[in-house]
């Protein structure tokens, strides 16, 4: 942005100006634009829409693929996506959003990955005040109702219990329904880690022959997973037939530990479908993973906002269960890995009539 000598004052006046601008433009536009929207909801011209995608960092293959999906959508409608990353730092994320909202927010669409649950409220409140169409993903406080907002269009997340259970079942099948497994949990105080592990517990109830020998946290980290797996292998030895991990990074760390221990008889499952995990599934060293389809997430968040901005969709017409929904996720194993190894977005998914096609149910 611009250099400001007195940031606070400048920010306030800028955001005031932005609000005023947004207000004027809403009154002014409406009839002449290409969009089919009319009446009270202001429609933007297609070429005036600004697209913004924000994730933690591009050094994470999943999040990099997310932004690439956003680029693919932007290109398909002849626009460019503004790529923002905040290094997993909540303060930095808020700063970026505040700064961006202080700039030109006319017809702005944001597809945001909030760092944690508590980071969502200030973002959507700010966007609401500035009249910015916003889609959030993964993290939101449970008691926040998206339908209470006019510009926070939708919140997309995935049922961690379901994915944890899917790979738990796949692991049980891979070891023949019989034997000991160890579990590597994620960062213990995150919803993702809790839900995924709850899914494993549900799977264990159904597969009574599978015994959970031990569970440890490796904080979603490849490096920690390597160390923890080595320790657990030396603790339980040959009793370990399978390793359940709450994400693929830990699965890859576990695979390295198995390699260093010279074990080839242990099945490993993870979640996220990062490229290395997919190639490990392809060559048979890993059993299964679950994909949320990062490129789709990056594209669809922008597509939803874009459709509302140009007036093809109206916020009040979107069903309540589509305002906050669980999206479909896919179990990937040796049989279907080829379909996922080159992540591509399907433009048809981003048509305004199809953007909610992958919703599998409202967030409970």
């Amino acid at each position, binding site marked *: 942005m611009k250099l400001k000598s007195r940031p606070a004052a400048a920010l306030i006046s800028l955001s005031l100006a932005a609000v005023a601008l947004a207000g004027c433009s809403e009154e002014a536009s409406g009839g002449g634009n290409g969009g089919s929207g009319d009446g009270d909801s202001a429609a933007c011209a297609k070429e005036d829409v600004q697209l913004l995608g924000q994730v933690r960092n591009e*050094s994470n293959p999943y999040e990099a693929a997310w932004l690439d999906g956003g680029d693919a959508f932007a290109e398909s409608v002849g626009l460019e996506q503004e790529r923002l990353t905040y290094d997993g730092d909540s303060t930095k994320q808020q700063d970026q959003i505040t700064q961006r909202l202080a700039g030109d927010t006319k017809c702005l669409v944001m597809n945001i990955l909030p760092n944690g649950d508590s980071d969502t409220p200030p973002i959507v409140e700010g966007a609401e005040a500035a009249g910015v169409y916003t889609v959030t993903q993964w993290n939101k406080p449970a008691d926040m109702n998206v339908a209470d907002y006019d510009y926070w269009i939708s919140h997309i997340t995935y049922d961690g219990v379901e994915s944890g259970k899917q790979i738990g079942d796949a692991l049980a099948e891979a070891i023949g329904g019989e034997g000991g497994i160890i579990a590597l949990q994620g960062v213990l105080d995150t919803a993702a880690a809790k839900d995924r592990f709850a899914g494993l517990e549900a799977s264990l109830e159904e597969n009574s022959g599978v015994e959970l020998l031990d569970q440890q946290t490796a904080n979603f980290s490849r490096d920690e997973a390597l160390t923890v797996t080595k320790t657990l292998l030396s603790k339980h030895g040959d009793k370990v037939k399978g390793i359940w991990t709450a994400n693929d990074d830990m699965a890859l760390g576990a695979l390295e530990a198995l390699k260093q221990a010279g074990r080839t008889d242990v099945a490993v499952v993870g979640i996220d479908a990062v490229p290395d995990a997919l190639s490990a599934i392809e060559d048979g060293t890993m059993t299964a993973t679950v994909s949320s389809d990062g490129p789709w997430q990056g594209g669809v968040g922008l597509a939803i906002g874009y459709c509302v901005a140009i007036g093809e969709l109206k916020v009040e017409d979107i069903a309540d269960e589509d305002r906050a929904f669980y999206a479909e996720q896919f179990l990937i194993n040796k049989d279907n890995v080829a379909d996922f190894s080159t992540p591509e977005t399907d433009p048809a998914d981003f048509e305004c009539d199809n953007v909610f096609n992958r919703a599998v149910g409202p967030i409970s």
Partner: protein
Amino acid sequence: MTSPAEDVVAARPQPRRGVSLADAGPPIALVVIFLFFAVVNTQFRSLTNMQNMLDTAAVLAVVTCGISFVLMMGSIDLSVPGVMGASAIAVALLVANNRNDNDLGLIGILIAIGLGAAMGALSGLTLVFLKVPSFMTTLGMSAVGLGVATLMFNGVQPNITDEFLQGWAVNRFLGLSYLTWIAIGCIAIGYLIQRFTRLGRYAYAIGGAEEVLALSGVNVKPYKIAVFALAGAFYGLGGVMVTSQLGAGLVQAGDGYDFSAITAAVVGGTLLTGGRGGVLHSAVGVLLTVVLTNGLVQVGVNLYWQGGVQGLIVVVAVAAAVIPQRRRNQVVK
């Protein structure tokens, strides 16, 4: 472990009796904790677990070896995650890998270590010439390193196919992985530098009383820069070792190693105020933290409790180690 001669070198105006007592604390704690776990858990004292613990300690030992020199000088170094991340990605892209056609082998490894040393030197230069406190310059250097690493990463994980580097983590000599032998080598080299070179002895002296050193006509600036460069080289090697272990170059290769290394060094008896401790102390500290982490898993402490229990034991161990000094200093900052 402890050597009285070390204290003569450092030439500190402190009673030697207190010093040796403080130096003996961490090794005694190590032995006590080790024996405790070995008695209560059969799996802990198995040969495979001994190997496993030493292998696990390797990377942390190398990083801690580097950071010890900086701490001895009374500075602090938070650049570990950045330097390790940059060297990890650099080495993964320089040896045989799936991203490009490079196949530099050992030369690639040396370049990555050199990159670490260069970044360390840059931290040192900023500290000495721009008078930015080491806390800030190294924190900034960490961010720079992570930025460089992210640029080189470019969205696609570089996986190494170089058999020489992969072999470091897999091949064994006398029951220990090559990585462990490299760590042992680093500790030996670190000790020799600390004990027998001007660089090592001045690092001590700078931490003990920089003014005195300056007044006696020693230009401390080049030594400060050299210490940071030396530490950077160790972190660079640490990044290379993580890459060997994981089979891939990760931007996050050094995540958490900054504070684990500082913790290990302090637990081993290296003071954050400088002038005390050293490479061997740090090695003991590394073993202590590794034994603790491993032991808690082996005896089956609930995972929700492990972090807290580990922290508590570390605090108690440090408190026990510094009791003799506390009596002398009276001041705790």
